[in-house]
């Protein structure tokens, strides 16, 4: 795709996605080489958001395939509308029983065969995200979200699809993509993906942002946050993620929730009590929460908020 790096950078920024070259360049490269982009990283670091931003920036439709355990081709690619099919079968039986002509049946045709051909036509086809992406009249952004949740068999099927962007539907023949979609896959690395799939992709690992970048993300996403408050929230995030051994590290989404709550409560400088009262917005796990409360009991918010809290 013919785009410029500088343009992409401005557009991401304008759309409120705050990132550095380490994120932009792999995205840019994937677009340039026309390859799928595989994004890995901890929960909530902004993987899914990249695809959404990309769709907006490119003015393309976002088609999302949300993966989950047990996802199969029926739900991902296409399915026959069996309810309508059953209705249709019963209808034609009733008509035949009443002595009427079965719909669309010629004089010498086998009505059973005719009915079956009819049942498996476009009319009864339910298009799922992958088929929609292939049939889309304009180049869409196809987001395959949390691809690590599917099993190896489905992953292999995806791999095939991403190789040639065509599928064969036994009843209808081969369908080929009008435009090769911009493909973004995300994974929380709960399962290692196959080498084959990885090889096909350009790879992007998103790390937690540093304090300065998180300050900017908070200010962009939560208008009304003061510089000081954003600094404190970001510093606390750094402390929680790197200094404490938590079961689940807080993500950017939690930082944003926390900032929103603090702004709503009219808090301008986070004190011990504020931190304790709002802690459950930041940490969701009970053990983690009590670890944080112990930290506050022992050291106040001194270590949590770091140097920004010093007067």
């Amino acid at each position, binding site marked *: 795709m013919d785009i410029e790096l500088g343009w992409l950078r401005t557009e991401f920024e304008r759309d409120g996605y705050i990132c550095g070259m380490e994120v932009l360049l792999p995205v840019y490269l*994937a677009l*340039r*080489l026309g390859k799928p982009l595989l994004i890995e990283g901890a929960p909530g670091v902004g993987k899914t958001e990249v695809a959404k931003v990309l769709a907006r920036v490119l003015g393309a439709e976002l088609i999302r395939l949300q993966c989950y355990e047990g996802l199969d081709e029926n739900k991902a690619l296409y399915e*026959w509308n069996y309810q309508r099919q059953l209705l249709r079968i019963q209808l034609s039986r009733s008509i035949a029983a009443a002595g009427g002509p079965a719909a669309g049946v010629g004089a010498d045709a086998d009505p*059973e065969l005719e009915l*079956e051909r009819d049942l498996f036509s476009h009319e009864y086809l339910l298009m799922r995200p992958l088929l929609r992406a292939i049939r889309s009249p304009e180049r869409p952004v196809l987001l395959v979200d949390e691809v690590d949740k599917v*099993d190896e068999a489905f992953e292999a099927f995806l791999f095939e699809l991403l190789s040639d962007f065509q599928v064969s539907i036994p009843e209808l023949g081969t369908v080929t993509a009008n435009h090769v979609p911009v493909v973004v896959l995300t994974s929380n690395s709960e*399962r290692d993906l196959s080498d084959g799939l990885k090889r096909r992709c350009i790879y992007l690992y998103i790390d937690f942002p540093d304090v300065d970048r998180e300050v900017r993300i908070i200010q962009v996403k939560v208008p009304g946050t003061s510089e000081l408050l954003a600094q404190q929230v970001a510093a606390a995030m750094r402390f929680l993620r790197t200094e404490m051994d938590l079961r689940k590290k807080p993500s950017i989404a939690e930082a944003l929730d926390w900032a929103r709550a603090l702004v709503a409560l009219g808090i301008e400088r986070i004190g011990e009590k504020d931190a304790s009262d709002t802690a459950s917005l930041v940490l969701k796990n009970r053990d983690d929460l009590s670890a944080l409360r112990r930290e506050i009991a022992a050291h106040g918010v001194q270590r949590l908020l770091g140097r920004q809290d010093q007067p």
Partner: protein
Amino acid sequence: MSIRRAARGTSAGRNVLRFVGTLRSLGVPAGSGEVLDAMAALHHVNMRDRSQVKLVLSAALAKDERSRSIFDQAFDLYFVSAEQAAVRARAREAEGQARARRIAQSEAELRFQGQSLELSGEHRETYAQLSQAQQERLREFLSRSSGGHGVDASFLPLIEHIVRGHLERWRQGIENGPGGPSTGDEIADDVVRMVRAGSGSGGDPLLYVDIKDISEADMPRARVLLRRLAKRLATRVMRRYRRARAGDRVDFRRTVRANLRYGGVPVELRFSRRKVLKPKIVLVCDVSGSMSRYASFILQFSYGLAKVVRDLEAFLFAEDLERVSEQLRDAADVELTIGRLLESSRVWGKGTNLAVALRRLNAEHRQVLTGDALVLVVSDTKTLAVTEAAAILAEMSRRVRDIVWLNTVPASEWPGLPTVAALAPHVRMYECSTLADLDRVLRLTMDIA
């Protein structure tokens, strides 16, 4: 477009190819499609901007945690300024001269009754790379056999044969060890050596430290790592079962087809079904002497998997064998319980007798050795009565699903161990001395299970 064609003409392309060679010798699996991507990437960035080049090459070539960490180090060492490259070339030259001196020295040092031994240049290099102590041992052997009773010059060929054998074994050890085999490219070899010498393997360096060498100060971090690895593997396995159960679903498409003749009333349902059975694991852990640290880690890891196995039986052994499954099953804190069990097992003394342990396992716990059981033996193989132990294992391996041996001795030392030679044919033996090994082996085990 072939890789060679893509690379031709541009020195940058050639450089990338050599760099990929370096990555490959460091175990980063870059496929040819990815190499093409890497070279194509160079057309889309400012080649004079080193950080841009690094980012796009990484996006094309390094696609997991370990690879990314190796890539970062290797890139920084490989793409250096002309000045830095010159310094390194000088260092290489000096090293080459030093080695030549050492080889010459080996001619003077390796003598039998005043005669210099006939050795290949390769073996002389190996000698030059040995530690002082190892060299000394070899020289001592030569001087002692030179003065032996009734030993004359006719012994020379035999002595040469023995020395060559030793050097060959060491040479292989060195090849598999930190230096690795040569890529035939001086600069690449240099980078490979430097990355390997550093923490270099990706992830937490503690993952690659021999478990017995982890310091007390690092133990809390090691435990966190252990828990994380076990959790990750358990999730992975758990998902497989859940998916398998979810497989018992009505397949509507096949149902509609099958029921056409009943007027669409779904009389016969069609199912799509897959079946996966949870594995049954029998752990047999050597806890003699220095083995207890390994045993503790491996037990903790295995109990981290308890949820995803059908049955977990655990035995500790040294001079004899003891079943600890019950204690561990009921333990509130597995880590603590393992510690206590190991503490009390000290009374067993230091000797290891696998044959006795296996005999007792056969005699008193035969019910656990069923056809679907996966037996995991954790031991350094250093046991008494090894021949008998091997015979029992051979017999046992025919009755159970599989026997996997987690050997805590690094594989590079296996060639010199007769116990390994005796036991390995009857089991699947894997090196397991670090947390990374443990993770890899158990993952593999769960995959065969």
